[in-house]
């Protein structure tokens, strides 16, 4: 504003001089800048924290390792193992580990539960596989090592047999590991140290997270430890949680929003649901223990179906407990999504002679689904990472048997991670980091699916 211009006269212009106004304006703008700086800083802080976390995990999940073979392959055959033919490899197995051929058949070919392996006839154990017809009626314990070896070589190719020789006889083990950062920056020193301390062993770069890691079962050795049992446990439990939790929670939200009248009883229910969302998860674990494991043990153990090998500490109990855990958040979120559907849409539907249920199912729910999905993402992501309630409900911390249904004993990925991190060996820290990467990946994939479906389903008014 130029000085010559006559300002408009009024109370404000009389009381606040041009000069005061200018100074004030600068102060007002400055306050805005400070606030903006704080908000930006908060973002930077959050990103740095996340980055540090990720780097820490990646740092542990990759790196140099010293591998020592329990049996030197050069003592097994004159030429490298991978160059040997299938019969030569089978000969090595029969010569070096005659007692383990049965176990190999059990682990790679058996069609029956491990408990029945030694007692079932071979036509059941090897159903669909190749075996000599004259052995159909006998059990595996009645066969000779040569017959067992023949079964192995008839059913598996050279590659699979080679892997068996490596995992059962050569048995490479990690005896020393370094994190990713020193492996990259300080490789010469590590090589020198490895050469001095482990002269007979090989130094390799190892990615602890690998397909083998995901598909192997647990093991007392970090080298061969895998996540399969825990990962399957997580999938089974998430399935139970979703199947029981989602319909009940969404149904409750629909009732509260579309049917219940706005009276004090409904308000008390709503307030309590919100409070339930804030209860520590371990308390849900105690509830699950009391209700699902103990009181409903006959159902959750499968005893009512004649299954007797478990108590109530099953996949079903765990899934139901997590379903209870996520229900408050799901209900509140679904209620908000339903409430956000414009009233005009409901009125239009009623105005055409639609019933309440037709209005809810054909207009309100389709419009609310994207918002409900957001809640589903949030709550399933929470459930997949829960540890405490499942420990209370009775997760097994070390279990090598894959869950096979609702009534199996279980462990889940977070509990497996917890168990590995509490082991003293450095190598198990690497294994735990690899498991964390797998868990994060599963979570990201889940969220991705939900976000994509939300975007495809969302409507604009």
């Amino acid at each position, binding site marked *: 504003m130029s000085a010559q211009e006559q300002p408009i006269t009024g109370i404000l212009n009389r009381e606040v001089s041009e000069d005061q106004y200018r100074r004030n304006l600068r102060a007002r703008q400055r306050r805005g800048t400070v606030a903006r700086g704080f908000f930006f800083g908060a973002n930077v802080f959050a990103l740095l924290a996340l980055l540090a976390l990720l780097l820490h995990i990646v740092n542990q999940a990759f790196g140099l390792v010293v591998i020592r073979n329990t049996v030197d392959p050069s003592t097994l055959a004159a030429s490298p193992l991978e160059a040997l033919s299938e019969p030569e490899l089978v000969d090595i197995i029969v010569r070096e580990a005659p007692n383990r051929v049965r176990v190999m058949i059990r682990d790679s070919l058996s069609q029956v539960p491990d408990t029945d392996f030694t007692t079932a006839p071979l036509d059941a154990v090897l159903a669909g596989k190749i075996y000599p017809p004259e052995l159909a009626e006998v059990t595996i314990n009645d066969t000779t090592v040569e017959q067992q070896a023949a079964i192995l070589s008839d059913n598996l190719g050279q590659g699979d047999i080679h892997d068996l020789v490596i995992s059962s006889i050569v048995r490479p083990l990690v005896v020393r590991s370094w994190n990713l950062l020193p492996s990259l920056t300080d490789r010469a020193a590590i090589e020198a140290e490895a050469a001095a301390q482990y002269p007979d062993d090989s130094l390799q770069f190892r990615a602890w997270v690998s397909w083998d890691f995901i598909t192997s079962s647990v093991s007392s050795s970090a080298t061969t430890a895998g996540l399969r049992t825990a990962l399957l446990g997580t999938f089974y439990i998430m399935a139970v949680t979703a199947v029981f939790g989602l319909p009940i929670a969404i149904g409750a939200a629909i009732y509260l929003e579309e049917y219940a009248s*706005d009276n004090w009883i409904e308000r008390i229910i709503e307030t309590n649901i919100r409070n339930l969302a804030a209860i520590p998860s371990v308390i849900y674990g105690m509830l699950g223990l009391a209700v699902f494991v103990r009181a409903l043990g006959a159902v959750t153990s499968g005893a009512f179906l004649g299954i007797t090998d478990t108590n109530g500490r099953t996949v079903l109990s765990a899934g139901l407990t997590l379903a209870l855990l996520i229900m408050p958040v799901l209900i509140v979120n679904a209620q908000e999504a339903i409430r956000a559907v414009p009233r*005009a*849409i409901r009125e239009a*539907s009623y*105005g055409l*002679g639609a*019933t309440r249920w037709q209005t809810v199912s054909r207009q309100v729910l389709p419009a609310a689904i994207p918002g409900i999905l957001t809640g589903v993402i949030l709550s399933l992501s929470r459930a997949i990472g829960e540890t405490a309630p499942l420990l209370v409900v009775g997760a097994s911390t070390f279990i090598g048997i894959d869950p096979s249904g609702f009534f199996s004993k279980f462990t889940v990925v977070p509990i497996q991670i917890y168990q590995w991190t509490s082991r003293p060996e450095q190598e198990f820290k690497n294994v735990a980091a690899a498991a964390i990467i797998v868990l994060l990946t599963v979570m990201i994939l889940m969220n991705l699916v939900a976000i994509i479906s939300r975007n495809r389903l969302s409507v604009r*008014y």
Partner: protein
Amino acid sequence: MSYNGNSSYAIEARALDVYYGDYRAVHNISMGITRRKVTAFIGPSGCGKSTVLRAFNRMNDLVEGARVAGEILYRGQNLYGDDVDPVEVRRRIGMVFQKANPFPKSIYDNVAYGPRVLGMRNKKVLDEIVENSLKGAALWDEVKNDLKKSGLALSGGQQQRLCIARTIAVEPEVILMDEPCSALDPIATQRIEELMQDLVKTYTIIIVTHNMQQALRVSDYTAFYNIRKQDVGNKEIRWGELVEFGPTKQLFSDPEQQETADYISGRFG
């Protein structure tokens, strides 16, 4: 609903009071809505004209705590009788809202929605209903090649005509219009008004409007509502009452009540 009416009224209100909880929004409304004519409800904001309109197809039932006293007769039967299902009432007495509210679906699905919720599944019949309804709402020529397009992609005036098409697709007897043109520009308004002149040959129309020129242009009868106030203790209570109801020309040229004359001449409201 059994038909036993030989009355010339499509809807008749008798001593109607509408309450929201303890609050009485309108009081003592008695009026007969003539069949196949346009009746306009006018009056200042808060006079209860929309409340009465929404009582006519039990739309107020959707509001928590709303109830009525008195009677609303349709085909000789009280709409608020115990054996009356509001779902059926709303099918017989359709509604067009202030803001066009098409469903977030295709034009076809918008119009077919009503017949479908009534159980109509036959594709050929649905096609015919959709075409006739869109023609009836003077929208067919503009959208006949885009029936799959979202109803929300249309202009404001087209959306409102789509809502009218949607309403007539369930073949109601009465169409309630709650300020249907208040969000439209003058050209779109004119098209809706022309459309009403076509529709009234088949349907009974009640329109709430803030625009007195519109009431004068489109309606055969006009009802003027006004606000009543009373001090109870230290609190003022308000409600709406029907002040004057008669043929539009007469009400605008020679009102019986001074209040009506004041309102239509723009002296208040």
